[in-house]
């Protein structure tokens, strides 16, 4: 089983090492900076493919485990391991990270710092997915959240949002739509969420010390403790709100449109593609994994909010004129499907939920790459000022349609498998009616996505417009890689479902029903 010792440590530390090397590299070493960044992305890609290939689904449980005590007195340890749920998410992170590096290939402004912060962020993400020690997990979580402030603040883009009515002067004063506003809002919001998580973790540490005989942050140790009644529900709610903010749960989602619209392409790709999944993963791993009783009691709340997310996000997307906001709202809607899958508490729904994390991650990363290309070539983000772009950028138009089709759940692409599994799970759950707004949400997605395709790419070109050129050279890498993944996951779900089923079975084994 042990293909390679320290497989997971390598996964986490490779991007961190890349960040360290980047730190000492001179600012002008453009080619070297990119090479180091690619290496920092390639090693985890390789290790996560190995992890997927060698994860023994029949054996189940956490595998590739590494454990070294750090502070025994506090129950702190370097304890890594992945189960069938984390393995696909590792791969997702590696794919998005790799393509994000290629998408920002043309970044020339302070490229060294850009790649450094990107590498730090990714280190944090990998860390969360592999950590089995809650304290270490929390540290990695903070590492994943914070670099985004710098990425948006320095490399982001601004777009003025005009406030109407009594909000007019307030909007100007606060600078709504600007990159400083977006960066600050995103960071403060997520840090507020972190506070909830920290309180939750500390409560578990304290309350778990009694039954275990000594305090511990260890996930496996804590998973044998039963936190029942009000305490369990409180901790669950802390995790749900804390991680849920990052997952974009309604009504704490408004950081996402402003933040994702202001962020640079690689930032939006990482954030909407991977970090939002980190939130959902947190709810799943800590909330559902450690507090099954509370999860069962509060599943109705999670499901209800998820259903609101799906419909509300999809409807909100239809109102947007800025193409980045449209994609951001569609993320809010699609994260609702992830959360709905969790709330079903059925193995089909949970597998679908994680499948949707992967499918949406890839799809939204593709979207943000495309939007970035359209923006750089046409210097526009306002869809109403676009039209007929398919003539001069047929390649970009084609890939945009592929991403859109996956987002509206067209069979043959990854989104369909994920959504359908979630709906199957919902239909067999305690609340079958949840499936209805889910399916209707997919219909609304078809409305706004295809309308956007038509507004941007179809119809006659606007008179007097310079034709924006198609993608070229290295720009194709992300587009081809990400859309191939969408097709692969759409036609061959076994690839992920085998480990996912194992992971979900482990998780549900603790639910008495």
């Amino acid at each position, binding site marked *: 089983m042990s293909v390679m010792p320290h497989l997971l440590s390598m996964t986490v530390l490779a991007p961190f090492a890349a960040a360290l090397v980047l730190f000492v590299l001179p600012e002008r070493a453009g080619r070297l900076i990119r090479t180091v960044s690619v290496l920092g992305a390639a090693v985890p890609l390789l290790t996560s493919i190995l992890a997927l290939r060698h994860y023994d689904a029949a054996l189940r449980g956490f595998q590739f485990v590494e454990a070294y005590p750090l502070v025994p007195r506090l129950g702190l340890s370097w304890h890594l391991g992945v189960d069938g749920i984390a393995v696909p998410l590792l791969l997702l992170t590696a794919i998005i990270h790799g393509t994000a590096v290629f998408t920002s290939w043309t970044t020339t402004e302070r490229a060294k710092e850009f790649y450094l912060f990107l590498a730090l962020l990714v280190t944090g993400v990998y860390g969360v997915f592999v950590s089995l020690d809650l304290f270490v997990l929390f540290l990695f979580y903070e590492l994943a959240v914070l670099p985004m402030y710098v990425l948006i603040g320095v490399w982001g883009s601004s777009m003025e949002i005009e406030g109407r009515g009594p909000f007019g002067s307030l909007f100007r004063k606060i600078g709504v739509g600007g990159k400083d506003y977006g960066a600050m809002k995103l960071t403060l919001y997520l840090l507020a969420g972190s506070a909830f998580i920290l309180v939750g973790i500390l409560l578990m540490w304290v309350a778990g010390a009694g039954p275990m005989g000594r305090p511990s942050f260890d996930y496996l140790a804590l998973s044998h403790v039963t936190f029942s009644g009000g305490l369990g529900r409180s901790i669950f709610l802390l995790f749900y709100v804390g991680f849920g903010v990052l997952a974009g749960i309604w009504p704490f989602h408004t950081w996402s449109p402003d933040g994702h619209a202001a962020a640079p392409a690689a930032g939006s790709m990482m954030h909407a593609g991977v970090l939002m999944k980190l939130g959902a993963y947190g709810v799943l791993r800590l909330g559902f994994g450690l507090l099954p009783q509370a999860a069962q009691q509060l599943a109705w709340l999670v499901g209800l909010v998820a259903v609101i997310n799906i419909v509300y996000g999809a*409807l909100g997307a*239809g109102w947007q004129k800025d193409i980045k906001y449209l994609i951001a709202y569609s993320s809010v809607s699609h994260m609702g499907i992830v959360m709905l899958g969790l709330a079903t508490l059925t*193995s089909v729904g949970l597998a679908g939920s994680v499948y949707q994390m992967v499918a949406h991650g890839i799809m939204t990363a593709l979207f943000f790459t495309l939007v970035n290309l359209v923006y750089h070539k046409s210097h526009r983000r306002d869809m109403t000022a676009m039209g007929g772009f398919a003539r001069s950028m047929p390649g970009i138009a084609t890939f945009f349609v592929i991403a859109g089709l996956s987002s509206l759940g067209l*069979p043959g692409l990854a989104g369909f498998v994920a959504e359908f599994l979630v709906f199957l799970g919902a239909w067999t759950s305690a609340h079958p009616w949840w499936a209805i707004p889910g399916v209707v949400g997919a219909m609304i997605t*078809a409305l706004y996505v295809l309308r956007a395709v038509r507004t941007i790419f179809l119809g006659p070109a606007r008179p007097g417009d310079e034709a924006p050129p198609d993608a070229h050279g290295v720009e194709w890498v992300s587009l081809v890689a990400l859309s191939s993944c969408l097709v692969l996951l759409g036609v061959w779900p076994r690839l992920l479902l085998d480990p996912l089923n194992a992971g979900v079975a482990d998780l549900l084994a603790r639910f008495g029903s």
Partner: protein
Amino acid sequence: MIPALVTLCGPLAAFALIGLLPPLRRAGRPAALLSIAGIAVAALASGIQAVPYFRGVAAPATYEFLWAPLTGAPSIRFGLLVDGLSASMAALVALIALLVQVYSLAYMASEKPASLGRYYAYQAFFAFAMLGLVLSHNLLQTYVFWEMVGLGSYLLIGFFWERPEAGRAALKAFWTTRLGDVGFALGILVLWGAAGTFTFTELFAKVGGGAVAGSALSLGLAGITLGAMGKSAQFPFHVWLPDAMEGPTPVSALIHAATMVAAGVYLMVRVAPLLSHAPELMSAIFAIGVLTAFLAATMALVESDIKRVLAFSTVSQLGFMMAAVGSGGAGAAYFHLLTHAFFKALLFLTAGSLIHAVGSNDLFKMGRLARAMPVTAACFAAGALALAGIVPTAGFFSKDEILASVLAGGHPLGFALLVLTAGITAFYIGRAFFLAMLGSHDAEGHAHESPAAMTAPMAVLAVLALVGGALAPSIPRLFAGTIAPPAFEPETAPVFVPILGTLAALSGLALSWLAYQRRSFDPGAVRRAVGPVATLLERRYFVDDAFELVYRRAYLGLSSVVGWFDRYVVDGLVNAATWMTWLVAGRLRGMQNGRVQDALYAVAAGLVLLAWLALGR
């Protein structure tokens, strides 16, 4: 099973090669030839596969593999089902697709090479999706290919994407059918929840054994029926089909004959053994079918665009098929599906030939084309006779079976309405024929006969439209070779059924001859005499307007409400919190000004407070 795989792989390989090799696509003609080769292989393989089923000597065969392993629920298996129904349908689809693709080679010759390559990539994809749908062995896989067929039609209808109308029509087609698919998806969920399987054979066994019954069965089937209504353009989902005429004419032939709209009826025929367990649903399907048949035929009366006349006629004929399904005559519906595919593809291809020659869709700009285009005229006549249901064309036999099954199902009123509709059908197609081919004035421009690549497929279809009635004895044999063979009783339809049908058709044709050829009376005067009714027909019963209203008010309206609410209320609260923080911070900051006097005042005040606290008690 190998012919079925070859059938699928032919068009799929062509699509993959054209799609993945941009130079091939940009070359145009080589891509076209590759696609034609792919569909020719499929046509050959599916033809060979279908022969034993037509002869009634083959049993159903299935092939399946694990697609999505699940825990806590039965895993999802995908596969192929070859039986009398799917084998014959696959052969039909491949044949029509082949003819259309050959025809397109000449029809689309003036397109730029890259554009032609794109056209054939879509064609290959569309054919693959439809063949996959036909050969699916379970409901979920049917849905998968069903949606792909929808995508194919979206791409082909919007082929001339620079024209705003084409983009709009493509969206309308996709959205309207998808609305039905909301029902389809939910229906699949309901049936899966009740039966725990998607596979047709298992589903039939469970329903037949009574394991699945009652509201779950009715609800699930109702959902599937909604999906079929969307695809097969049944009232009120018919709105997309006339607009779909924005696509290239050969595409219309394909969509209207063997793919897309045929999918809905095919699915209903496939699940017909289940429908018989939900009698209320059967009645509803029958009513919808009759209503659609009648309303669409009346709308065709006032249409001047030749393609739209044919489009409404398709909607109407699909209504006939649905009515047959609803009255328990799935065999009759399927028979009509086959013959309709022949004569409707034929009519569209001849219409394309006319449009190619005249450069306009407007019937009133055509006239006396029979002399310049004899082959096209003869083919159009064959198609028109078959559509009208004149003895001994294919249409006569299949329409007769539908009428007989409706009567046998105990629906005398529906029977009367369908006979009337048959008369209207003959009238509007006669009108189109006389206006375009004979008439009193010459067409604009210099009309000329189309090249052989166009006339040859037309000729093949014309022969099929004329002699397709000979398939009638094969239908029971095909159904005997399905996974749920019905207990066929030799139906002895009353002899007045064919007589009534023929009388209706002949009087329709005669009336159109009087109105548009002899000019015995002025159709314009009739139109003026029934003003409001004509307006109602021209506005298509305001169904399009109703959809438009729902889209604008309900969707766009709700969307702006949510968007506004999010920006100004939800986010407004967030921004208000920021603002409050600033406000409070601004006040508090005033205290930390570093002036010694202020600090001393504070110290003094604190001392007074402490003294008061200490002494006051």
